[in-house]
């Protein structure tokens, strides 16, 4: 399964008819996309070469000034580093846990419906309410986390107020909040693997571990690919969780790329500069996605 797979079949001669069909099938999406997505995307590209405070009806051309300012701002590079740490912290952890849970729930389990709902519940809670709850959980004086740790004789830190623990606390909450999404996707993927494959493997005397690596992992790869691409995109664009839980603090230690962008757009009203940051992010993500596609192609 790859994005660019082309199978040459006898129906190749139907190319012309397919083209017409494709147009029909794509038309609703294309109409809405060109109106509400493509224009804004190109407009923000245009803005990245301009200065605009959003209140005024005029923009002024500044050439590449926004981009060079970005590359020269030391804070920008700190923010890029924070984003990488956040991504490396959330994506693998999130994927591992959600696959594990989906895998466990794919067996005969008592109370499966309840369990699945429990793991999905965090996705449903609105980010603001979730942050309010987690701020309490992490509270150094009243919070649940340090209370639990105290049973183990550990004195927990003031999670959100110390540079080294705040990023960890943020990652933990982010994984909690988004894990349910991936679990549902993995579950749907696992359902697609026929039991007969496993049964056949059992007859051959394969253990659970072999079955997992030889059957589950390869057959799940379309799902895994999808989750991987989407997780990377969303973790590079992390904003909600950061905004509501740590606001980039303490001392800027959890300030990530989109938070930095948001600040410049809606705190300092520099939409041109914010757009330049957006296009840096765009190029990074395009490269990462193409690399993933290439990687998948060579493997499958």
């Amino acid at each position, binding site marked *: 399964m790859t994005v660019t797979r082309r199978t040459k079949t006898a129906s190749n001669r139907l190319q012309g008819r397919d083209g017409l069909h494709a147009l029909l099938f794509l038309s609703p999406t294309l109409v809405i996309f060109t109106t509400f997505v493509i224009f804004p995307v190109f407009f923000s590209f245009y803005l990245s070469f301009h200065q605009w*405070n*959003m*209140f*005024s*009806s005029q923009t002024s051309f500044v050439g590449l000034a926004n981009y060079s300012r970005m590359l020269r701002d030391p804070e920008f590079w700190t923010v890029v580093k924070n984003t990488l740490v956040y991504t490396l912290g959330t994506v693998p952890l999130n994927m591992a846990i959600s696959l594990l849970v989906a895998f466990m729930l794919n067996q005969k389990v008592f109370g499966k419906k309840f369990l699945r709902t429990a793991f999905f519940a965090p996705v449903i809670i609105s980010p603001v309410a979730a942050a309010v709850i987690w701020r309490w959980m992490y*509270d*150094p*004086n*009243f919070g649940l986390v340090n209370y639990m740790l105290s049973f183990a004789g550990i*004195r927990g*830190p*003031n999670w959100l*107020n*110390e540079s080294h623990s705040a990023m960890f606390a943020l990652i933990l909450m982010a994984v909690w909040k988004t894990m349910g999404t991936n679990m549902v996707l993995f579950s749907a993927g696992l359902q697609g693997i026929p039991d007969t494959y496993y049964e056949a493997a059992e007859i051959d005397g394969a253990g659970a571990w072999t079955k997992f690596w030889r059957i589950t992992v390869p057959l799940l790869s379309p799902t895994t690919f999808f989750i991987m691409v989407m997780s990377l995109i969303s973790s590079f664009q992390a904003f909600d969780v950061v905004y509501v839980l*740590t*606001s*980039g*603090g*303490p*001392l*800027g230690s959890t*300030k990530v790329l989109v*938070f930095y962008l948001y*600040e410049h757009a*809606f*705190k*300092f*009203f520099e939409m041109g500069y914010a757009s330049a940051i957006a296009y840096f992010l765009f190029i990074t993500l395009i490269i990462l996605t193409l690399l993933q596609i290439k990687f998948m192609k060579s493997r499958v």
Partner: protein
Amino acid sequence: MKKLVLCALLLGLLLQTSCGKKEEAAGDGRTVVTFWHSFVSSTVPALNELIAKFEKENPAIQIRAQYIPTGDALIQKLITSVQSKTAPDISWVHSDYLQDLVEADAIYKMDDFIAGPDGLSEAEMADIYPALIQYASWRGTLYSMPMEATNLALLYNRDLFRKAGLDPDRPPQDWRELHEYAKKLTVDADGDGIFEQVGFSLPVFPATGPLGGWMVWQWLPFLWQAGGELINEEQTSVLYNSEAGVAALRLWQEIYRDLKLSSYTTDYDVAFASQRQAMALDGPWNLPRYATLLKHFDWGFAPLPQGPAKKATIIGGEYLTIFKQSKHPAEAWKFIKWIIQPENQAFWAIKSSYLPINHSVLQVPEFQSYLAAHPAFKVFVDELEYSLASRPIDFHGLEITRHVAEALEKATVGDQDPAAALNESAQKSNALLQSAAK
């Protein structure tokens, strides 16, 4: 699948019928004035009463109050509404936004109305606390009108004072006492290094967050008490890294360190309510809540302790602007003018616990009897006499506030040298001011 399509069609129909354009007029011939505000749910009933009173006295006008969440949400709403020419008639704004609103030619000068036929006399203008007028202006021109005032005082638990052997009728008078009392009221009974009770807390928040400006706002009184200023009169360089600024920040740093506030909650109000905290900086907006929340112990408010140079507290409040896109600027002005009348200010202050904006409210009999019955509220009203507003910054005010916030965070959370932190920030601010001057 057919069912799906059918559902979609039905929904489409429903939408067609339910999104009729909203009527400009009230339907009964009254002029509708839209008013954006951000009062939380506990203040909304008071606001509704105020509006009802206005509408009764002005039967030709209907005020349509719309709640917009404050801060970032409000600014996004303002940007998009100005761009799409759907701005409200009146909105409350923070003075930080005035520069951009004025530069986009989005709002009226208040002088346009004050000097007009239905204007305000000089005596009426002089009646408003000058600090509020200063705060509502940008580059010397008044662009907004205060709707109510707020300031800061010291909230303290009288029971805990007694327990610590302190006189509850003699709250801390100066910085030294504040620091001393804070330490005395901090208790570690079992000696495990964790305080069960904390004497005082500071509003330290991430500089980058929505509360960064809020932290600076509460630090400014300390700067003034030490004799400092944020920026010079010519607006060419910042002054917050002066000796006064260093002294004010050093006080914060020492309290933060001594009370181990780095491992303390920022929800001071709930900590205070559960008697784990003895003193806090607080404003009048919490008074209605405290009447029930704190009923199980003896508490009070005191004026902020005096600094090495003088007594000072900060004044703030919400400011009303009239948008140029408004079709009814005269009616909008009528509402604003009505609100700042002393008798209406008295009504609003009593209902909402916000502070009045003019001196002569003190002569209104209902207000006087209310003050007599509410000593905590009276502390704030008395403080109005020496409340200061920060000098509005003409350009890059938002960035400069951010720089101050960064210094505060570095000296407290980061435990860096206050002078070094302030100087580093001041350098950034001054570079911005120089680029703006060009």
